[in-house]
Structures are given as C-alpha cells and as structure tokens.
C-alpha cells in the first residue's frame, strides 16, 4: 500500500462524439479531502459517475480501496458512500426508512442497521425527524440525510457531487462542518464543486478541471502561491500602457487585465512594491483610479489556469437546477 486510496490512470469518457473526460490521471491519499474544481460541463460529474460505477469504464484504469473498477465493481460499491448532485430521496419514505432501505441494499444485518441508523441520525441531528416523510424536510435537512445515507455502510471513501448546490450560506457551513467531522473520523472524501470557497475551505488537495482535462493539481496554498504571494489590483485610465510598464519591473511575476483592472502578481511583500508602482505610473502620467492589495483567492487561481471566471457558469447552473426541480 502506498497510501493512495484512489488511483486513476488515463481515464477518458465520451457520450457518442462528445468527449466529456479526456485522459485524466490522479491519486487521492487515504484520509484526505480531495476536490474536483471546475465549471459546469467541465466533466466533473462524468468522471465521478464512472468512479462510483454508474457509468461504464470506457478507457483507463481505476483502483479504489484496492479494488479494480473493471474486475470488481461490487468491491468498490461496498467500499464507498455516495451523495448525488440532485436530491435522490424517495418522497414517500420517512427519514428512518430511507436509512434502513440503504442498509438493506448493502445487506447490513438487522441489529447493526438499527444501531447505525440511530447513530447517524444523531450525527446529522435528525433524530426528532426520524418518522417524518422526506418530502416534508427542508433542503438542508435533505442534504444531511443524504450524507447520513452515504455513511450508512461505513465507507472508506465518501463521494459527493456538488454537495452544497442550492443551499443557503448557513446550511452550507453546517454541511461543511459535518464533512470535516466525518473526515476527522477517518473517511476519505472526494468531492466535486464549482464553488471556489468550498474547494478552498475543505480540501487538502484540489484538481482544477476544465474541458474534461485536469489542468493543475495541488494543495489550496500551493495553487495560490504559484500566482505569487500577493496580488495587486490597480484601475487606471490607460491599462494597456500601464501593463507594459509594470510587467518589466522588479518583483512582478505576471500582469493581466480583467474587467478594466490590472492584476499584478508579485513575489514578496506587495505593500513594499505598491508605492514604487504608483510612482512609476505617475511618472508616465497615467492616472490611477483605485488600488487594492490582496492575497490571491481560488477565484484568481482558477482564472489564471483556465483563462475565465466562473460567473457565467454559475448562472447557467442556477437555471438548470430550477428546471430539474420544477
């Protein structure tokens, strides 16, 4: 054992002519929280669907918890828990029955099933809702129930596809807390998300995925540090000219223009560079409208590697969700 609980090599998946996942390889270490970060349509859900055995393995090799996906999909099924992107609860079952049903699917003996159901209801704080039909639960409670269901089989890896989509900020934080608690208890977590803050907050390791390919993999800090230690944002009246001047200055790693602003990634302390930059721009009679100094965020990392933001995709996603629920 090399400490990797998931090993994926050269995985590709196509729907007819549409190549959704293109030759991706990655490993997930036992006990970590690993995220696929990318916009909708990047291939995240397709990749996760292959790993959890819902889609057939077309190309590549996948090993999870020591089981080969091609040789022993049932071994994998017994080793993982899943929380799907969309709500997949039976509206006509109550909370307890939902967990019991799941336990039966995996042949968990009666007494053990009862015990785990009770423990999990306590974990996700749904004991007092045990006999309520799932149709009467709020969105956050449904998510918590689904997480509990995913843990029913005591999986080695818990897969979550967009776990906090459509939840309000408070509920999101609660879900994050549960996931951290579950992870502390030893469960490896694999999640997909298009929320930067989610990937940043939860993950030990992030793979940025776009157009079916993994673009870069690293810890949140490494990814952010590749952009430089600090990020200076300047808005001026002549951005192109300013960019030319600044890009050759000491300590500047890269200058990009986004939304009428200059993004200057610098090595070392930004607050030291900033006065020098302002002087230099003034000398060239470029008028500065605003100045901002910050640490790079996952947003910046994503923009840097994919060349685009996530804003448009988030809106798309919102409408898609509405259509599905409606």
């Amino acid at each position: 054992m090399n400490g990797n609980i998931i090993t994926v090599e050269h995985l590709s998946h196509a729907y007819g002519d549409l190549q959704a996942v293109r030759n991706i390889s990655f490993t997930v270490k036992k006990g970590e929280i690993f995220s696929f970060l990318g916009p909708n349509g990047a291939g995240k859900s397709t990749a996760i669907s292959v790993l959890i055995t819902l889609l057939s393995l077309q190309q590549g090799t996948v090993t999870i918890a020591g089981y080969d996906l091609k040789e022993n999909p049932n071994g994998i099924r017994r080793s993982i828990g899943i929380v799907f992107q969309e709500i997949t609860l039976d509206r006509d079952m109550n909370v307890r029955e939902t967990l019991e049903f799941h336990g039966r699917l995996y042949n968990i003996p009666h007494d053990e099933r009862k015990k785990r159901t009770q423990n999990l209801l306590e974990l996700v704080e749904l004991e007092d809702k045990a006999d309520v039909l799932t149709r009467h639960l709020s969105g956050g409670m449904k998510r918590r129930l689904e997480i509990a269901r995913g843990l029913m089989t005591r999986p080695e890896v818990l897969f979550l596809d967009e776990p906090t989509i459509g939840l309000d900020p408070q509920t999101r934080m609660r879900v994050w807390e549960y996931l951290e608690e579950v992870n502390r208890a030893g469960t490896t977590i694999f999640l997909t998300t298009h929320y930067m803050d989610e990937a940043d907050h939860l993950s030990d390791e992030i793979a940025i995925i776009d157009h079916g390919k993994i673009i870069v993999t690293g810890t949140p800090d490494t990814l952010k540090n590749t952009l430089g230690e600090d990020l200076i944002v300047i808005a001026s009246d002549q951005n192109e000219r300013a960019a030319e001047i600044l890009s050759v200055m000491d300590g500047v790693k890269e200058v990009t223009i986004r939304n009428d602003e200059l993004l200057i990634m610098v090595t070392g302390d930004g607050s030291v560079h900033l006065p020098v930059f302002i002087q230099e721009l003034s000398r060239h009679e470029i008028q500065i409208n605003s100045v901002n100094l910050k640490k790079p965020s996952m947003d910046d990392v994503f923009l840097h590697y994919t060349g685009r933001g996530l804003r448009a995709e988030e809106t798309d996603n919102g409408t898609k969700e509405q259509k599905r629920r409606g």
Partner: protein
Amino acid sequence: MEFGFFTVYLRDMTRYVRFRTQLLSSLIMPAVWLAFFGVSMASNLDRLSDASAIPGVLNISYLTFMGAGVIAMTTLFTSIYGGFVLLFDKNWGLMREIMASPLPRRDIVIGIAGSGVTKSWIQTTVVILFGLLLGVHFFTGQSPLRTVVSFGGIFLFVALFSAGFVFLSAALALSMDSPEGFQGITTLLTMPLFFVSNALYPITGLPQILQDIAVVNPLSHLVRGIRYFAIGDDFTAVGMHIVTTPGEVLISLGVLFIFVVIMFAFALRQVNRTVVT
C-alpha cells in the same frame, strides 16, 4: 442466501399500505364494475340465457360469469401500472442509489413483480368476497377443501399473469422518460387486450379474427383458469355451453408461464441497459 429483491418489495408494499388512495381506488374500481355494469347486464342477459339453458348442465348468471372477468381485469390494470414507480425512481428518485449499490439489477424487477403479485392477490380476495356479497355464485357445490384448492388455483393463475404484466410495465417504465408517454402506451395496450378477451363475454360468440387474437391473449387464459376453479368445467352462460378440460387449463397455465418468461427477459434486458447519472 441473499434476498435483495425483498428490499425493493418491502419498499413498494410500504408505499401501497401508506398511501390509501392507491389501495382504495384499486379496490373500488372492480366493485363499481360488478355492482353497476355486472348487475345491470345480468338483469337483462339472464332472461335470455335462462331460456337457452341445457337441462342437467349448470346455468350460471351473467354476474357470476363476469365476476371472473372482473378479477382478471383488475389484475391487468393493477399490474400494468406495477412498474410505474420505476419511472419516477429513475427520473426523480432512488434509482441512482440502487444502481450504484451491489444489489443485482434483476432484483429490482423481481422485487417489483413480487409486490405487484401481492397487490393482485389482495385485490382478488377482496373482489371475490365482494362478489359473493352481491350474488356471484363462486365455488358453488365445492367442499371446503375443494374451495381452498380452487383459491390456490386462482392465485397461481393470477400470480403468473400479474408477474408477466409487471415485468412488461417495469420494462416500459425503464425505457421511457415521461409519465404521460407511459400512460399512453399502457392504455393503448390494455384496452384491446380487455375487449378482445373472454372477460365480459364468451369468445365463441366473437367474429373469427377476434377469436384468433383472443387465443393468444394472456387475459383470456387467465379468465379461463379463474372460471375453471371458481365455477367449474361444464356450465352454460350467456347462451353458450362452456366446457373446459384439465388439458385446456394446463395449456392456459403453460401460455401464462411462457408469457412470464418472455416478459422477465424483456424487463431484465431493459434494467441491464438502464443508465442513470
């Protein structure tokens, strides 16, 4: 031993018992047929059929004749909707969870057929009891032991027929996306089956072409089995002399058996092809 299908069975039965509307409506429909259509037709037809009765042969009322048809009809309409829940599971519910679990896929259709058969048995029992109340003469002249055997025979026929149609229903539900489409197809299937059968009238009175169709209609074979056990092997009804030999009953049983096997294969093929993501 693994009884994975029992998980699916239990879940479907829980819904059946929990949501009384499904239970009640499935029991009220046959009652309405018997009480209104049956009684009205009987009061007209019995005058004619009594005139053509053969001395020494049991002459049964139209209500008794039709009682067997109502059991069959109820079984048909319940069973053809037996797999409907899978369409909802696939589009909006549990199917992902089930498909990603180690549960063998055949257990999905076996479980759902099991609950379909159970529902049909419940309905059959209720229709028989309600019919006896209304004046349906089932099991006349049968000893208590023979009545038990007759019940067993009816249950066997109902089970095969019901399982076959639930398999068909499951296969359709798994291959379709819209509930409306499913309802359209099932209505299109069940109405001709119902009318081109011996459920409401003897097929010997039908035009030849319809008789030929009725011979391969599983519903006719179910009705023949039920009448054999509930009424007898030699009787007159609606002016027709109906004689059923044990050989013919075995043929009907065989036809239903083949029907179940074919429908199971169809359902298995569809469930193995189903992809949900």
